[in-house]
Structure formats: C-alpha cells, structure tokens
C-alpha cells in the first residue's frame, strides 16, 4: 500500500492491541456529573440554570454570546446541586455545574432525521453551534467556527482525520469500524458547509480493517478518497496531516484555511452528522480507557461530566498501582493529581501507567546530539529554543519560532538527556504572550 507522510516525527510503541478489537460499550451512569462550563477553546460559557433547577438530557446549561465558543449541555436528567469552580483536567479550576442524576436518562430526538442536502449552509452551522460540537481530537476548538471559513479563502478539500497517532488510544479506530456511514455523512455535511469539492479520509496503515471499511463506504460517494498514511507520530496533527494528504504547507502562524483545507476528527464528523440530522447535542463521546494498570481496558461511550474515578470503577479499577494517570494520550495528555476531575468534550482517553513505564531520571544539560531537530515535525530547533528558554532568554526563543511549536512532544521523547523540552516551550510561549498583552 502506497503511504504518504510528512517529514520529521517519531515512532513510539503503539500499545493499541489492548483495546483495538473491543467494541464501544456503555457504562452505568454515576450518581453525580460535573460539567465544566469551559470545555472548549474560546470564551467560557455563563450558566443558564440555577441551583435546585431540574434539567433534562441535552438541555443547554451554559452558553456564551462570543463567536468562538460553544454551548454546554446537560448530559443527564436530574437536578442541579451546585455551580462552583471545580478541578479541571488541565491547569486550574473551572466554573462547573454539578448535577445529581435521577429519572429517565434516554435522549429522544424531537425530529425525524433530516436530509442534509435540504438544509442550507447557514442552518448547518447554526445546528452545529447549537449542539455544542467542538473538535473531539483533543484541542476542543468550536467546530462551527471551522465550518465558517473566511470569504476570501475558498476551501477545496475536507480531510477527515482518522490517524489516531497517539499510542494507546483506539476510540477513533472503533468509530470508523462501527459507524462508517456516520463518518461519511459528517464529512459530506462539512464539505457542503465550506463549499469544498473533495473529501479525504486519512488513516494510518496500522488500522487496515478501518481502511477497508471506510473504503467500502466512501467508495459509494463522489470525490471521496481514503488515504492510507504512514504510521508515525504526529501524523494526526492538523498541519502534518495536510502536508501528508495534500502536500500543502500551512504557513507559520496561519490556519489550514490559508491553503484551502479543513480538518475534522472522525469523532467530530459523527457529532456533526448527529447534530445536523437529528439535532443531537454533544453530551457524550467515545473514549479509550487503557494502560497496563487498568483491570479491564475498554472503549466507552461516556456522558460528558462523568468523574474519572467512576469511569475507572466501571473498568474494574486498577490491576496494579498506577504511577501516572493521564487524561488524553500519553504524548499530549495531562497527568492528573486527582481522580475527581470529570471527562470533558476533549478527553480522548484515560491512560494509567505503572511505575516501570514512568521515567523519573533527572534531566541534564543538552548534549547537542541533534535528535530533537530531526524529530521536530515543524522544523524548529528544539535544542536551541530549550536552552534559550532555560536561560529565560524569551526574546531569542521567540526569534527561533517557539510560537510555532504545537507541543507534540516528539523532541522530548527522543532527548537522551531527558530534557523537559515541551515544558520549556510552554513556559516560553506563555511568557511571550504575556509580554505581548502588556505591550
């Protein structure tokens, strides 16, 4: 099979065999769900419910007037017991709505499935926004914003991202196997919304069954092509995927619309399909619970707001004491200090790693081996940027384009000195942005 790819990148072990043959399951609901009101990139939502009020499945509980934002819906039926800042999977606390689960928990569409061909473009975007759909790959960028490209930049290609290049995660793989029709439907809707002609579905060759299934379904559609891609991290990163599939390079600091491309994750495609045809809000998502410490690794369809501790309980708990529990994939995810945090729209997995897999070696000075330079998919010089950031020379770090780093972690993965390069870059980026705000 001819495979396309980008330059740079790494080949971490995949560890996907634990869950890639397990169908997506549902689990029992927890007693309480915690729904943060800021699960997306952009403006936070303000609560639309009060403490004591009862809510139904799919009811809007938070919204914002800002364009770059997405409403938040209740994932369960019950009543609101608290609205307060609670721990969130990254950094600090986020204003969250706590809902006590009670009553009938089934969501029923109040409309017959619509045919997207009869819906005009503006209504598609509205439906996507109202359903609170955001990118489910991890960054949680509001999808309706992506479906509204600038007028002067026509988009010709929609790329559906089925790479799933992060080790361990298999949720996108399962979505492609189990719901290929919905993926294709979502791709068609996205294609109509941005006025593109071609659809590409990029899948890494370590998922031959998904490639076969998608090829069968996509073959019946016009101008839709499944593109097998080399197994390499970070193949599923937006800019790298565009390079691999279309051989176009997104200029630094610009968006994919600059080169006429739109990238959507397969999970997002399904969410778009459900939002537009059924009016279904994004209140549940598929994620992978895996790692050597999980007793029964699973692919699960989980209501947003379910506490991680409950999810782990439903997977049989820990088989051995974990050293690190990560939300998201092991490369770009966030290590957690508490299991009370809820699953949110951007959570693609929960990975529990044992002591033996967590490096605690001290980091050292750069030995100038240049491995990070070869690994960097953005062609940056992580060695220099890291040293400048370490010396608090942020001006120089900015000159070496630290702002183009999207924190894939390939450099830190290959570093023989175990330098915490991504942390250096994150710190430098935050400092540079703070200085710009002050200026």
């Amino acid at each position, binding site marked *: 099979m001819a495979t396309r790819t980008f330059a740079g990148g790494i080949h971490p072990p995949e560890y996907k065999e634990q869950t890639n043959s397990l169908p997506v399951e549902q689990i029992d609901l927890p007693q309480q769900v915690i729904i943060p009101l800021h699960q997306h990139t952009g403006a936070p939502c303000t609560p639309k419910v009060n403490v004591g009020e009862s809510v139904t499945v799919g009811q809007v509980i938070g919204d914002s007037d800002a364009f770059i934002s997405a409403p938040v819906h209740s994932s369960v039926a019950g009543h609101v017991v608290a609205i307060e800042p609670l*721990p969130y*999977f*990254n*950094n*600090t*606390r986020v204003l969250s709505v706590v809902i006590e689960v009670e009553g009938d928990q089934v969501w029923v569409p109040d409309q017959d499935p619509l045919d997207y061909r009869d819906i005009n473009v503006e209504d598609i975007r509205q439906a996507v926004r109202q359903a609170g759909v955001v990118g489910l790959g991890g960054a949680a960028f509001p999808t309706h914003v992506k479906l509204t490209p600038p007028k002067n930049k026509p988009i010709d290609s929609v790329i559906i991202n089925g790479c799933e290049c992060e080790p361990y995660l298999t949720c996108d793989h399962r979505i492609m196997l189990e719901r290929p029709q919905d993926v294709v439907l979502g791709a068609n809707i996205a294609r109509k919304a941005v006025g593109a002609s071609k659809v590409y579905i990029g899948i890494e060759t370590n998922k031959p069954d998904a490639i076969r299934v998608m090829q069968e379904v996509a073959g019946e559609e016009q101008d839709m092509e499944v593109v097998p891609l080399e197994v390499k991290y970070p193949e599923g990163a937006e800019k790298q995927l565009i390079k691999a599939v279309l051989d176009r390079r997104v200029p630094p600091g610009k968006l994919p619309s600059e080169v006429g491309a739109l990238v959507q994750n397969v999970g997002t495609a399904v969410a778009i399909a459900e939002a537009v045809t059924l009016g279904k809000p994004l209140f549940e998502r598929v994620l992978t619970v895996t790692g050597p410490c999980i007793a029964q690794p699973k692919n699960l369809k989980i209501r947003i707001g379910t506490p991680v501790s409950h999810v782990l309980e439903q997977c049989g708990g820990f088989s051995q004491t974990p050293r690190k529990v990560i939300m998201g994939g092991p490369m770009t995810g*966030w*290590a*957690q*200090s*508490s299991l009370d945090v809820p699953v949110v729209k951007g959570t693609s997995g929960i990975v529990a790693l044992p002591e033996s897999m967590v490096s*605690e070696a*001290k*980091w050292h000075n750069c030995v100038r081996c240049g491995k990070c330079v070869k690994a960097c998919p953005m062609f940056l010089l992580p060695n220099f940027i890291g040293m400048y950031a*370490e010396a*608090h020379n942020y001006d120089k770090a900015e000159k070496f384009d630290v702002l183009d780093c999207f924190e894939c972690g390939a450099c830190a993965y290959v570093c023989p000195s175990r330098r*915490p390069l991504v*942390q*250096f870059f*994150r*710190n430098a980026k*935050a*400092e540079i942005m703070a200085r710009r705000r002050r200026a």
Partner: protein
Amino acid sequence: MLQAIISMAVVGAVFGGLLGFAAQKFAVPVDPKVEQIKRALPGANCGACGFVGCSELADAIATGKVAHTACTVGGTTAARDIAKVLGLEEETEEKEQPVAHVYCVGGRTECGNRYEYDGIPDCRAASMLQGGGFRECAHGCLGLGTCVRACPFGAIYIDKNGLAVVDETKCTGCARCVAVCPKNIIQMAPRSRKVHVLCSNTEKGAVVRKICKVGCIACKACVKACQYDAIHVEDNLARIDYEKCTNCGECAKKCPTKCIVDFQLGAEAKQAS
C-alpha cells in the same frame, strides 16, 4: 629603535588629532543635568519606573516628562537630590517606600505536596500544570524561586521551608517580584505597617483547614479583635486596610491558625508561630 619610537609617536599624534577633531565635530549635545540626575538615581536598572533603565528615566526627568519623584527605589533621598539638580524650590515631601510581602506562610511543613514535581525549576512553568502546581494549596507559594531571580537587589530568598521570604532591609519596593509571581501572592505594602495576613487562599474555611495548617479560614476572629475597623473578610480571606491599621497586633494574637503575622515581635516569635 629610534625609528620605532618616532614612527609610533607620529602615528599616535595623527590618530590622537583625528580623534580629538572627531570628538568636537560630531559631539552630541547632552544636557549636563541628565548626567547629574543619573548619578542621583540608584543605577540598578530595575525598570520599576516603567522605563528601560535609569538613563532613560534620567532623560525623561530632565525633559520634564515625568515628575522628579518617579523613582520608587531611590525614594525621598533620590528625589531630593534630583530636585537640587533641577533647581526646584519647594521641599520634596517625605514619601514612604513600599515593601514587598509574600502573602503565604504555608511552607513544606504546613502545607504538603499533591504530587512530586521534577520539571523545570520555575514557578510559572509549574503553575501551568494540573491544579495550578504541585502544592496542596492552589494559591500558595511554590518556592521555585522565580521571584528570587527577578529581584535586582537580592532581597528575596527561599527559606528551608520552601517559602519565598522578603528581606525588608534590602527590598526597595521596585515590585519586580509582584509582576513575575504566577500566583499573585507577592504584594506591596507600606513599610511602616508591620501586621499582615500572610495567606492568599480564597476557598472556604473547611477546605483550607484540610490542606494547610496556617491558612486563613475566614473565622473572623481578627475582625472582632480589631478596634479600628481595619480588617475585613472578603472572599473567605481576611485583608488588612493599611490606612486604618495601627500596628496594635491584636488580630495576630487572636488568629487561630497564625496566618496573621506581627513582624514587630521579631524573628524568634515568627519562627515559634
């Protein structure tokens, strides 16, 4: 030998002459006041005034862009010297120099860590991790020394307990540390005020009690103890109104968690509490 001496002397004379000519021909007129003002300034280039360094501030003062009291670090002494240079008639008012305080006393022994942190030794980097850092308290001092590195006067150090501490005698009130602290727990206070609520946690008392032995639990004992209406609890945190405070220290005596510290009692008392 003689040849060498003569040639060197000629070369020296020619270049010396050229330099002397250039110095007069291309001389940039400098206001002599600028030089004098610069001498009156502390010369630390700390940037507290908002200018790039002392030279730029001296320039701005000489041209009348800012008042002669613009340097906080130099304080009244510098302002008076500058007033002399500028020939100002009126007497410069005595202005109190502020001093920085770290509003947290929950060190390693009082407030534990939620997880081990082995990343880069920088508070800003650590505060970007889950939960706002590795300490139990999301508002507390991380003790990785970002403020220590920012201080141009060497007035901050990290004590054995993992806490940033300001040496009042060295602090000049430039507020560089205030700007870099990601937890916003370093604040300026009037130098004459000696009683401070050294806690920044705005969570409810019950939560604070669980995670820190010396956190403010918003019990309001201090509010009751104060005869001058100078201490109030807002957002579950006691704060002193420094304009009303008289340094009586009653609140510090009543504080059950000892997060109110009376610096008049001296170092030994502080250690004991």
